[in-house]
């Protein structure tokens, strides 16, 4: 009885196709599931999608988060079919930046976007995306392409030779087929890029009708509508492989802002024992299910510092794949700490998924600090390069690193490195810069 556990009647088109695909094992859908590993014999049939690459370790399909530095610490990028959870910093200043980078990367790579927010109109969010740093001569080429003209003389190609690789696709010119780009956050993304991109917006106040239907399942109506919207887009645009005629496969990048905040109708940020305590976790489970069965990647920002119930935070973390926490120094005692004077905050990589593998790519370095310059958001391996060793130790002995005392209450699960700093001496903690020779350079 080789039953796949789905319902017996296979009348749903997607379901039966999926079932057929999994049993036959010979299918053009080998890449439909984001778990197709490079070891499959059907590798030759796999079409490469712009803006993606395969993981070196296990052949997992990856997309860039928009910050090449962050990609590095996440094992090469964000795996297609997974959720990246950003724990917002306290005043929500830096997490929108990561959110915008992710979306901008989608536009530049030609991916489809789905932007959901309860606070801001998605059209406005897209207007504020950072501009990609591209060659000026190339930009002129891109304009010509949009007009449908043929490429001009070869002279331009010789100057901007590396752009010779980008595929000429009808209708949707891709700016670059590379993986991971740099952005200038002081400039806005050019309007024509937004117009040529395919995006779907979900703005909660527009979608919620005045009559509140009591939903049968325990999700808040906002989450319910969002899930249905996402599922609709995935199904209709064929991201789940339900439309085999669609020749050009593409990735859907989903961005959901401020999930769990009261704006979504959820009260886990308001009270410790809330009524809809399972709403967010159920939403995340169904979201994960939708992502695993489609070519999409999702970024969500959650104000975990507002959630008072630590158990909920732990559950939310367990239901997400990659979890990155942002901790800004504004208003905290670390702001005056001379160790951190060059930086704006810390980045905690709390969780990295093990996909199709027993092990995962975990970076040796756990101390990551970020800095927001005028044009760039940089991530550096936190180490005060300028101070001398003696003054450093003197400072540490006098003012022990605030990290020890301020427990970062994002997770019930303590960051193991925090404990390492407590039990070993501070000197051991500062051995890290010296043990990673050559890696401790700033990513600009």
């Amino acid at each position, binding site marked *: *009885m*080789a039953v*796949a*556990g*789905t*319902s017996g009647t296979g009348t*749903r088109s997607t*379901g039966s196709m999926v079932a057929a695909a*999994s*049993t036959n*094992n010979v299918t053009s859908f080998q890449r439909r*599931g984001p*778990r*197709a*590993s490079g*070891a499959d014999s059907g590798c030759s049939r796999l079409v490469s999608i712009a803006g993606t690459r395969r993981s070196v370790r*296990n052949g997992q399909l990856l997309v860039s988060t928009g910050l090449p530095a962050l990609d590095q610490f996440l094992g090469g990028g964000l795996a297609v079919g997974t959720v990246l959870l950003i724990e917002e910093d306290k005043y929500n200043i830096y997490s929108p930046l990561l959110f915008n980078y992710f979306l901008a990367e989608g536009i530049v790579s030609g991916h489809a976007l789905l932007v959901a927010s309860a606070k801001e109109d998605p059209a406005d969010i897209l207007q504020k995306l950072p501009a990609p740093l591209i060659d000026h001569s190339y930009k002129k080429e891109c304009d010509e392409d949009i007009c449908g003209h043929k490429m001009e003389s070869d002279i331009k190609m010789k100057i901007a030779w590396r752009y010779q690789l980008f595929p000429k696709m009808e209708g949707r010119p891709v700016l670059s087929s590379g993986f991971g780009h740099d952005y200038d956050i002081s400039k806005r993304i050019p309007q024509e890029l937004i117009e040529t991109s395919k995006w779907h917006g979900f703005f909660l106040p527009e979608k919620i009708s005045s009559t509140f239907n009591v*939903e*049968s*399942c*325990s999700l808040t109506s906002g989450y319910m509508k969002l899930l*249905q919207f996402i*599922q609709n887009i995935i199904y209709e645009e064929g991201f789940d492989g339900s439309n085999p005629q669609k020749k050009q496969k593409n990735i859907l990048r989903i961005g959901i802002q401020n999930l769990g905040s009261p704006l979504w109708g959820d009260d886990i940020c308001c009270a410790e024992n809330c009524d809809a305590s*399972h709403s967010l*976790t*159920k939403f*995340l*489970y*169904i979201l*994960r*299910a*939708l992502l*695993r*069965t489609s070519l999409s990647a999702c970024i969500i920002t959650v104000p975990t510092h507002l959630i008072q119930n*630590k*158990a909920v*935070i*732990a*559950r939310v973390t*367990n*239901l997400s794949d990659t979890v990155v926490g942002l901790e800004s120094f504004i208003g905290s005692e670390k702001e005056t700490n001379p160790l951190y004077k060059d930086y704006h905050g810390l980045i905690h990589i709390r969780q990295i998924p*093990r*996909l*199709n*593998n*027993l*092990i995962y790519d975990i970076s*040796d370095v*756990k101390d990551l600090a970020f800095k927001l310059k005028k044009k760039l958001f940089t991530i550096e391996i936190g180490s005060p390069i300028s101070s001398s060793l003696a003054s450093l130790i003197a400072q540490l002995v006098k003012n022990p690193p605030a990290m020890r005392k301020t427990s970062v209450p994002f*997770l*019930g*699960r*303590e960051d*193991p*490195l*925090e*404990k*390492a700093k407590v*039990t*070993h001496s501070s000197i051991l903690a500062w051995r890290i810069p010296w043990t990673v020779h050559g890696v401790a350079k700033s990513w600009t």
Partner: protein
Amino acid sequence: MSVQGKLTLLCDAKTDGSFLVHHFLSFYLKANCKVCLVALIQSFSHYNIVGQKLGVSLTAARERGQLVVLEGLKSGVDVFFRPREEPHPLQFLREANAGDLQPLYAFVRDALQPVDSGEAAWRCPVLLVDDLSVLLSLGVGPVAVLDFVHYCRATVCQEWKGNVVCLVHDSGDTEDEESDVLLNGLSHQSHLILRAEGLATGFCKDVHGQLRILWRRPLQPTTHRDRSLTYQYKIQDKSVSFFAKGMSPAVL
């Protein structure tokens, strides 16, 4: 197989214990048992690919009827967006107050029912659940989950002399009462507890964690106390290596 009719509890605290699930899955498949895998948290292809590294082919096992898989994620989407009248193992996803896991138990029972066929049957049936803690996140109460495990034990362990293996997350100090109730309840019911913990001193590249093995209800009535052993482990690409505490090859 001497070990039959047992409930094995896999537990992880501050680390990821899913490698134990993969191990037991490949172990029982190689031992020619009939396995029902309730995979609630990852997709089937994830288990398949890891299983290939460990030397079993899950697709082949599924085709020959040795393995039955309930893919929680895939079926969950079905039942959530396209609800139907007949009971579905995951129908609690559609309900506001998730009642009990009766349909899920019915699925397990139907999957592992020993069939009286002429050909050589599989060895004892095995139920593998990955993982039970996610059911709490989906609104099912801990008592309902304990009831489900009790029913499965009564049928699979007592009646059919099979084994049940489940993975639970230990929530540690996050004051997750439901998780604590579930974990304590299961610990009392189980015969063997495998607990994967992160190291107390923090992250280490060469030793990924510590595994505590606790035998409860020992098989020989003469031994009174529960036996326990502790090993440290390092997970590699295709296997996991165990060593005694402090005896990691990186240290020696």
